[in-house]
């Protein structure tokens, strides 16, 4: 027989194990590599951890989060919850976190508006408008956001009038509608004061929003099942305004507005929105808006021209083609990059530290770190905050994305 099997191979049972198989047999080789990787990771941990322990011992420090309960001793100028200098470092961190979320939310909403408008207008057949929009996109995309934040902050501080310019008969500046004052200390706007029974008004408002949704759903079922087209726009507007105004009038105006007024050297009353918040908000919105505009444009271009032409053949007008045919389909392409833009806004809001807006980087990673000297603890906590927020945002947006996705069978 020419095909005589090698006796050694034939005799050996398949399951027998040699040491060299750890290297040469693909079944075991990956285990070997992982084992070596594990040992390498442990060795790195030993190196880093040993250094950490030695360095801490040398500096006379330890790892402890007890400082979070100690009084912070510094003030925060923009605070959504009760806070004073006697509150703890932990509370300061929470105030900072809320400030981060506030500016991130405001910037996300504004950036989406800017981005969608600019993205749609960039595809407009109006030559001057589309050129203007590509100018906007290129200028803002290619310059660091930190520079935009600083430019807008400098404008807020240097180019806005001081409160004293509003004083006297020949004042150089005046308030907008007697309600808004744009000063170099920030923007003053009316502040709602909640009196007795204002909860009812707010309740009515929420109920009317729920009502709008129910009405629209009802209109849709009427359209799909009975073919009756019910106008939704004006009834929705009516539902939005009328019940609240009625409740406000019937209950004798429980919600009043407190207007800012110039007293002494500064404005008193009303709501002060600091220049740092405005600079951060506006810069993040306009910078990220440029990126979103590109995503929107790419999404619209991804919809084949046949869709637009088919809609045109059905006799739809251009703005209805955009709203009813192109944008709903483009949304599926737009949402995934939009998620990462929202994440970018949240992460970039940490640049607040450059203009002194007290977000979590400013409180926990700024003053608390400097006062307590606990670098490792604060920076780790800071990273944990951002990691959690990022993961939450992407989880929520992924759920939304899955609902918007084309249901394929």
């Amino acid at each position, binding site marked *: 027989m020419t095909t005589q099997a090698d006796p050694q191979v034939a005799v050996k049972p398949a399951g027998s194990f040699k*040491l060299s198989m750890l290297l*040469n047999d693909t079944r075991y080789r990956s285990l070997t590599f992982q084992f070596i*990787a594990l*040992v390498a990771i442990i060795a790195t941990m030993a190196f880093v951890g040993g250094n950490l*322990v030695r360095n801490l011992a040398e500096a006379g420090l330890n790892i402890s989060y007890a400082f979070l309960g100690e009084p912070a001793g510094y003030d925060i100028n923009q605070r959504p919850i009760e806070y004073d200098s006697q509150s703890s470092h932990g509370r300061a961190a929470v105030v900072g976190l809320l400030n981060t979320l506030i500016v991130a939310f405001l910037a996300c909403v504004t950036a989406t508006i800017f981005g969608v408008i600019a993205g749609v207008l960039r595809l407009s057949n109006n*030559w001057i408008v589309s050129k203007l929009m590509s100018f906007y996109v290129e200028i803002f995309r*290619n310059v*660091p956001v*930190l520079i935009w934040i600083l430019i807008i902050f400098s404008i807020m501080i240097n180019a806005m009038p001081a409160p004293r310019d509003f004083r006297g008969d020949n004042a150089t500046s005046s308030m907008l509608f007697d309600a808004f004052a744009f000063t170099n200390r920030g923007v003053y706007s009316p502040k709602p004061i909640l009196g007795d029974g204002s909860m009812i008004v707010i309740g009515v408002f929420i109920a009317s929003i729920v009502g709008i949704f129910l009405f629209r759903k009802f209109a849709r079922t009427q359209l799909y099942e009975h073919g009756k087209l019910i106008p939704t726009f004006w009834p929705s507007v009516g539902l939005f305004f009328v019940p609240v105004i009625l409740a406000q009038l019937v209950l004798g105006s429980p919600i009043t507005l407190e207007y800012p007024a110039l007293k002494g050297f500064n404005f008193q009353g009303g709501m002060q929105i600091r220049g740092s918040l405005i600079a951060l908000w506006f810069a993040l919105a306009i910078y990220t808006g440029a990126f979103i505009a590109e995503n929107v444009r790419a999404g619209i271009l991804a919809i084949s021209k046949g869709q637009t032409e088919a809609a045109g053949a059905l006799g739809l007008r251009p703005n209805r083609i955009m709203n009813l045919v192109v944008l709903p389909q483009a949304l599926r392409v737009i949402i995934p990059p939009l998620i990462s833009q929202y994440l970018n806004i949240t992460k970039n809001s940490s640049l607040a530290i450059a203009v002194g807006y007290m977000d979590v980087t400013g409180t926990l990673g700024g003053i608390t770190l400097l006062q307590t000297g606990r*670098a490792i603890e604060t920076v780790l906590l800071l990273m944990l905050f951002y990691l959690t927020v990022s993961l939450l945002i992407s989880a929520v947006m992924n759920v939304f994305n899955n609902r918007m996705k084309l249901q394929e069978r």
Partner: protein
Amino acid sequence: MSDTHAQTVAFVRDTEIPPAPPPASEAGAVKWMRENLFSGWFNTILTVLAIFLIARFVWFAFPWFYNGVWDAASIRECRDILDGKTGACFAVLVDRWDHLLFGFKYPADGYWRPTLAFILMLAAAMPVLFSKFLPRKLMIFTALYPFIGFWLIWGGSLWVPLVVLAAIIVTAMIFRLVEGLEFGPRQILAGIVGVLAGAGLAYLLYQGATELWFISNSVSSGGLVAGLAALIFKVLSVFTFVMFIPMGIFVGYAIFQSAEDGGLVTIVTALFAIYVMLAYLLGPISGALNSVIPIELQAVPSRDMGGYMLCLILGTVCVSLSIPLGIVLALGRQSNMPLIKGVCVVFIEFIRGVPLITLLFVANVMLAYFLPPQSNFDLILRVIIMITMFSSAYIAEVIRGGLAALPKGQFEAADSLGLNYTQAVRLIILPQALKISIPGIVNVAVGLFKDTTLVSVISMFDIVGMIRGPIQQSTDWISIYWEVYLFAALVFFVVCYSISQYSQWLERQLQTGHR
């Protein structure tokens, strides 16, 4: 019928009438404007609004530029010259030009060095950027550039980068030599290297085991968490202690075994060679050469770097370092070994979940705790480490996209040709995956370059740091902002816009006709 009619016609035209010009509203500029500017009431409103905005902008900006003062020593002098007119004070750019570009500590007589390094960098980038139009041989200059650039910017003895270069060349030669050895000598070499590497690894692991024991003892006091941590470290320490001899023997044996196909032994020998050369021979040899033929530039410590130069250094160094790291991370994330995949996923997702500022805080205040007590990594080096980690996570995700876009057939075809993993990745997978990922990598690079301004937050003096610190707080140029920030915006715009235009051009060039 028709022929009777034809007889009544007395005249037949034998030439064509010249075509009449189209109506005035359907030709030339008028038509273009009707179609592109005033095609409906909505577009007309938009056009009028846009023209109004542009006019308003020009109305404000033109006098500001036109009246600009280029020659003044301070902002007061500038205002005196302007005498109440609107006008820019560009004199600050003239006065602080060097500070904006090089920072305020770089020796003034050495400004030609970074300038030359920048020009040479452009030249070195050309063969890579336009590889289709330039001869491949020019790539040698690109390969040499890191050494030239390092020497020009940081200064010191020329012999240091030259000896490092020589060490790398010698290592490459050793690599070739071992690869080409006969089986007998290679087995002897593998034996020697195996024993050395095994013993070295065992020693390192033994050190690690004692270190872990030390950590476990020092964290044991404290609450429940500390006790748990101490227990974990004890277990790890015992594990390492049990493993250090078998691991050493095993790795030594593996290297010895690899004499047959020669993969591992060549790599380990080359690593040995370069380690010995850099750790023990670099100092003496370059010192000796320098004392014989001294070629020196004034050495500049890296904390003296500043201005736009610092942004460019950070951007170039971090991007070039993070591309290989990103490739490794992306391949690790695609791997089917759960441990390696897990480590890569955790690293990438962690880095992508936190802002760059927190990583810069780590570099500024935290990293020193994790390094050996006597080591003095300066701030710029720590920042480079952290920014490289940051961008490598993003680049890894881009490359993972490229890898995922490859059809599975490519991997299977490589397997069926009998290529091993490294060969398949190097020759088949990466060239295609990287080509797909180029636009994404360029996007990350541009984003990273813009993010280098963030180092001003941890009190480094890049261009933004220079503006906010030494310029805006000097008595001469107190609180000047439009001119300097617009200048900073302009220099970033020029670089980022040209990179993105290049990327779009390259994308068109690389279209190989799929789709």
